[in-house]
């Protein structure tokens, strides 16, 4: 398992390679890459986080994903600092023997990353700077994963 919070960009191909070469039993790799969407007049996003709690929260959810699905490898990367439209912002990859586990674990981790990991986004637009408000649709998405 690899959890990284960094300002630098990441290489999706290299992350996929690292997740699949670890074990010959990997038959499926599902990944999600989130990008800064250049809608309206967005100039940039600036992300801050709670060092320590972020890693702890993501690691806890990866442990929960491993208890739910037979995973062979998981990587979660989240960038912080100032990012512009088109920049990669988050990556989650889940490797397993079969596709259902990989797909579901990847979605599960993204839903929890959005609603529990302590990151905050500030949007910079032509008109000024505002903090992004949390969306209830993200909270609803996380609720579909019933506690086990």
């Amino acid at each position, binding site marked *: 398992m690899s959890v990284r919070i960094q300002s630098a960009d990441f290489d999706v191909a290299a992350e996929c390679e690292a997740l699949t070469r670890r074990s010959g039993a990997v038959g499926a790799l599902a990944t999600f890459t*989130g990008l800064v969407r250049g809608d309206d007049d967005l100039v940039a996003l600036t*992300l*801050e*986080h*709670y060092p*320590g*709690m972020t890693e*702890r*929260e993501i690691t806890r959810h990866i442990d929960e994903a491993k208890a739910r699905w037979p995973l062979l490898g998981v990587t979660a990367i*989240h960038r912080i600092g100032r990012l512009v439209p088109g920049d990669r*912002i*988050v990556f989650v990859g889940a490797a397993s023997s079969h596709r259902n586990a990989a797909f579901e674990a990847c979605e599960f981790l*993204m839903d929890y*990353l*959005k*609603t*529990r*990991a*302590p*990151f*905050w*986004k*500030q949007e910079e637009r032509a008109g000024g700077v505002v*903090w*992004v*408000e*949390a969306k209830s649709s*993200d909270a609803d998405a996380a609720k579909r994963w019933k506690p086990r």
Partner: protein
Amino acid sequence: MKLFYFAWVRQKIGRGEDEMELPAGVATIGELMSSLRARGGGYAEAFAEPQRLRAARNQDHVQFDARISDDDEVAFFPPVTGG
């Protein structure tokens, strides 16, 4: 105890952290919020609407009725918006 503030909570208070003794008569996160609000200034603004805030104790999400002690690390922040 150690306090951390993030996003607009940090901006309203004007600093990212505080170190202080647990105020007398404060036993929960909610009571600590009232005590900080009573300091006035940026604290009063940051804690004016508790329903807009979330809290963590020792880096775990907690509700406002969670009990706290002087050894705890407590953080206040808006609902998270990562991903």
